[in-house]
């Protein structure tokens, strides 16, 4: 059983970190576009912003467990099957991209508007404003966003266990629920609580260290 739980823990960590990574790769550019395409943004493109925003809202409004099932054909296309670790990652990434995009959007919205104006008057291109002002100024918020995404995905990954997604959630459902092994159920919960605490505190530590606005 110990072996099972250790494997489950590592599987969950793998699923969560890989999906966070891909969700960031997908969500960061979308979040940036949501900000700069706004009517008052640095590269206004109102229709683009509206389309992107409704896509984000649509995906976010689908309950995750339904999304996993709805994505089965797509998942099969990408990784060859609709269950297991790889399949979980596909579903989690699709579910998390809009989430990350909104978090990035709100992180960038916190950047001082006057500073953006100042950068424009200094002759910065839109690309330079994104890379050298928006992203640089929101580094602490972006680091916190990574931990928020990871923690959300720990929960979502457990949900993927319902359809054989691998990791701790899978174990909790197969052993804890279906075979009435309450001890397994409790242990998976304990492990996940510890996992969430560790993610939260380590990323908070990094974010605080990177935050130059603290005297």
């Amino acid at each position, binding site marked *: 059983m110990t072996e099972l739980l250790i494997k489950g823990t590592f599987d969950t960590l793998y699923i969560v970190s890989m999906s966070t990574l891909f969700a960031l790769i997908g969500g960061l550019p979308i979040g940036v576009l949501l900000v700069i395409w706004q009517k008052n943004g640095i590269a206004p493109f109102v229709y683009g912003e509206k389309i992107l925003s409704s896509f984000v809202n649509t995906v976010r409004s689908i309950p995750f467990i339904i999304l996993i099932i709805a994505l089965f054909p797509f998942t099969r296309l990408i990784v060859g099957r609709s269950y297991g670790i790889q399949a979980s990652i596909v579903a989690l990434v699709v579910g998390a991209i809009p989430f990350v995009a909104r978090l990035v959007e709100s992180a960038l919205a916190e950047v*001082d508007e*006057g*500073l953006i*104006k*100042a950068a*424009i*008057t*200094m*002759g*910065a*291109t839109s690309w*330079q404003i994104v890379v*050298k*002002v928006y992203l*640089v*100024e929101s*580094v*602490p918020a972006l680091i916190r966003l990574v931990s928020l995404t990871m923690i959300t995905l720990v929960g979502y990954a457990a949900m993927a266990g319902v359809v054989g997604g691998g990791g701790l959630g899978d174990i909790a459902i197969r052993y804890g629920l279906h075979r009435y092994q309450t001890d397994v159920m409790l242990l998976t919960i304990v492990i996940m609580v510890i996992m969430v605490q560790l993610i939260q505190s380590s990323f908070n530590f990094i974010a605080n260290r*990177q935050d*130059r*606005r*603290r*005297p």
Partner: protein
Amino acid sequence: MIRIENLTKSFKNENSRLVALNNVSANIGNGELLGIIGSSGAGKSTLIRHLSLIEQPDSGTIWLDEIDLFKLKGRDLLRMRRQLGIVFQGYHLLEQKNVYENIAFPLQLVKMSKTEIKKRVDELISLVGLNGKAQAYPVQLSGGQKQRVAIARALASSPSLLLCDEPTSALDVVTTKSILDLLVEIHRKTQVTIVIITHELSVVKAVCQRVIVMDEGSFVEDGSVKQVFTSPKHEMTKLLLGYQEGQL
């Protein structure tokens, strides 16, 4: 030489039309130290937005030597903006970057080499009197020090015009004096054209050679500080002077 020529700008609301700039014209010679003063709503902010090339006029234009600034597009516009240095009331520094990196910012935009940047930034840090503060972050600086960083940043790309938008309005009296002294010193050393836009009479009196008084979108007086303030002609100038005396 900067020539503001019949510059007009109005803003339309649903049922009202506000004329923010009403056919204003003025010449600003190279190396001048000019103050533009007016109460709030006089059109100062709109003028600044035009001088900093982030707003298009309804009609009229601004010439820099032989260049019509509002005909510039794309790359040319970016290049021209880089030749203007602007100091803002609210500093607007990068909070996540230290003093050195903030001053280097405009130079990085034009992809200057690291060694050249270092040379230029070191010069500027000592010019604005921030020696030893290169590694400090804005949060560790006082208001006056932040404005020094902003001035150094505005001067980084060796602009032909240094535009100061209410540069001391967020500062106390003592700090205001030190920032104004700095501007005068910079003017003496570099002969850069400086335009200070403010609502504070004392600022204009302390540093400027020439003053333009703005009221309701127009330039109502234009002359040497001495002449305008000793024999004011327009009601607004008298009001500004009277208000000041009443305060003292």
